[in-house]
């Protein structure tokens, strides 16, 4: 989050511990007017919320995305979920997980071709995340996939989609490894957060516990490079073990990296 500089105001009591914002993006040390939030941080919050709301309702710019994807894939197919528009999408998660009839027909022409990896690009809850972060992430990921000698199916661009939309698509394409790039639920300080989900042998009916997720992929969060490396690691492991999801994750979680909680913790100085 941008650390705004607020002007001096006689009614506002500043917090000398504001300097601790060097250690967290949490909105600490905002000061107070009486006991309440002063005007400047109040409006800064309103702006962040407005941006997050706009991100939720911003339509996917399909023309622009098709162009970007066509430069990176041999074939791009445009699909739509069974949720007709945004309001229905928000109320009916079940529809966002299914393709509409036109899309199902379109996919029929790809049947029986088969591929190692299918990549789905879906708007999810933030088209902005797709507009800004899908192509740069793919630029890190695609060369890594090529080095693994995995065949790549056509790229599917899907509107009004939830994560599980990757299942019917991966199934229709006969993919062994299914990847979904999707706009995540925008946080106040992260309206552009990209989620990367991976499902081994994507087929209709997979549970969410059978997927792996790399979250918060964006310039201010998890970097494109490290997210792509982690994904490749998961793909390789899944390919060997024939599973994805919880079972896969258990082996990759390291022991605590937090030390004993005292290092650098100013509330627990040694003396």
């Amino acid at each position, binding site marked *: 989050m941008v650390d705004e500089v607020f002007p001096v105001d006689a009614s506002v*009591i*500043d*917090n*000398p*511990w504001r*300097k*601790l*914002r060097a*250690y*967290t*993006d*949490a*909105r*600490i*040390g*905002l000061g*107070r007017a*009486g*006991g*309440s*939030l002063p005007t400047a*941080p109040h409006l800064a*919050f*309103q702006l*962040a*919320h407005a941006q*997050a709301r706009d*991100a*939720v309702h911003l339509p996917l710019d399909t023309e622009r995305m098709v162009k970007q994807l066509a430069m990176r894939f041999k074939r791009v197919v445009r699909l739509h979920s069974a949720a007709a528009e945004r309001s229905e999408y*928000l*109320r*009916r*998660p*079940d529809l966002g997980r299914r393709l509409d009839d036109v899309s199902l027909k379109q996919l029929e022409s790809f049947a029986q071709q088969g591929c190692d990896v299918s990549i789905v690009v879906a708007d999810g*809850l933030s088209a902005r995340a797709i507009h800004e972060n899908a192509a740069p992430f793919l630029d890190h990921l695609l060369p890594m996939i090529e080095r693994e000698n995995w065949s790549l199916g056509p790229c599917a661009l899907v509107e009004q989609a939830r994560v599980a939309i990757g299942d019917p698509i991966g199934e229709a394409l006969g993919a062994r490894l299914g990847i979904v790039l999707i706009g*995540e*639920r*925008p*946080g*106040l*300080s*992260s309206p552009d*957060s990209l989620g990367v989900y991976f499902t081994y042998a994507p087929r209709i009916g997979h549970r969410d516990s059978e997927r792996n997720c790399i979250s*918060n992929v964006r310039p201010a969060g998890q970097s494109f490079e490290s997210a792509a490396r982690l994904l490749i690691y998961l793909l390789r492991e899944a390919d060997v073990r024939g599973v994805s999801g919880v079972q896969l994750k258990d082996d990759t*979680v*390291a*022991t*605590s*990296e*937090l*030390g*004993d*909680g*005292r*290092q650098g*913790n*100013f*509330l*627990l*100085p040694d003396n």
Partner: protein
Amino acid sequence: MSEYCTTIGSRLYRFSSLRELMACATPQRSGDELAGIAARSAEERVAAQMALADTPLKTFLNEAVVPYEADEVTRLIIDRHDTQAFTPVAHLTVGEFRNWLLSDRADNAALEALAPGLTPEMVAAVSKIMRLQDLVLVGQKCRVVTRFRNTIGLSGHLATRLQPNHPTDNPTGIAASILDGLLYGNGDAVIGINPATDNTASVVTLLTMLDEIIDRYEIPTQSCVLTHVTTAIEAINRGAPTDLVFQSISGTQAANQGFGIDLALLREGNDAAQSLRRGTVGQNVMYFETGQGSALSADAHHGVDQQTLEARAYGVAREFSPLLVNTVVGFIGPEYLFNGKQIIRAGLEDHFCGKLLGVPMGCDICYTNHAEADQDDMDVLLTLLGAAGCNYIMGIPGSDDIMLNYQTTSFHDALYARQVLKLRPAPEFEAWLARMGICDETGRISVDHELPASFRHALAHV
């Protein structure tokens, strides 16, 4: 199974079961529409409410909304029902029960005595025919007081959970939010972290850190790391200084299975925390979170409406005499609670139902960015819950949870509610705030440009 009917004009409305009647009578909720069990028209909803109002309370003891044989939550509810305590209202219908609750006969003592005689389905039913002001008024009459290192839920008091979450559990980042919260008079209900990982070693580190902070600054409060009950038990086995054991719970056995728990496991968690005897003024050691829609999202709702299932989760909670229970009311998203109006009503229903059942209710007054809700809606719910005598709310820096990506009440929001509604922190914690120079004798924050001495010392190390 009986049938329930109402005639409106020339039209007969028929409901084939108590479950269907309850679902049709419940105020509009996107989650019930998603489940396909909501009333099909506004008139049908009121017709169902009328039929429900005519239904005797005793019916709920004879017709289960989830079968007794198939669900351990139903068995818990029925087996634990106290017929003696039920006597004062045993002859009433749901509609007459509403009148009784609003009458002067239903004072705090009467409601406390009645609680073991009520089932979750009874309180859910009466809540469906109440307006917001009824939910506030009756909620305010029920006091449920719990204790560990301080006393929570007393009349005229409002506590907060200090929620210092950080996306990577960075100890310094967490400490920064803890300091901010304490200096804004927050943290009496619990200092509770949602960890980024369920990794036991990290959980032990965080528990140790919280314990050392509470010990060093002699804060009369308790800590919690909100991890799965099995991880908490493992942490206790490794010797972690654990005050409270946390778990998300729901109102059906199948939904609880989705959380990886059953009643036996909750008993195990409770026993593990009890064995440490770490409370100083009491031994309520469990912390539960709930929320309307959790059963549906786990595909474990049995065709029962989400508000009734939420009340059943409180039936689970009360079995374990918890210190804290809160509904995370707007976290689940618009497919269950579509907008501010639905979130506000759900928050008040949950508080009311929990309190009537004798559960120490707090509320995470919150929303996500894809719900049709904003800070104004949260202000409405906060003010109404403050008036309703809610035990505690969340406190977080600037309403922005940077780890869970949602908005809940801020440290400042708690100060607002305390000021406007003349509410005070838990008495032991309030005395500490005064001793540390954080609050003055009127309870207002007095921290200025000069920090209280012990914290000045800490900050000098940064």
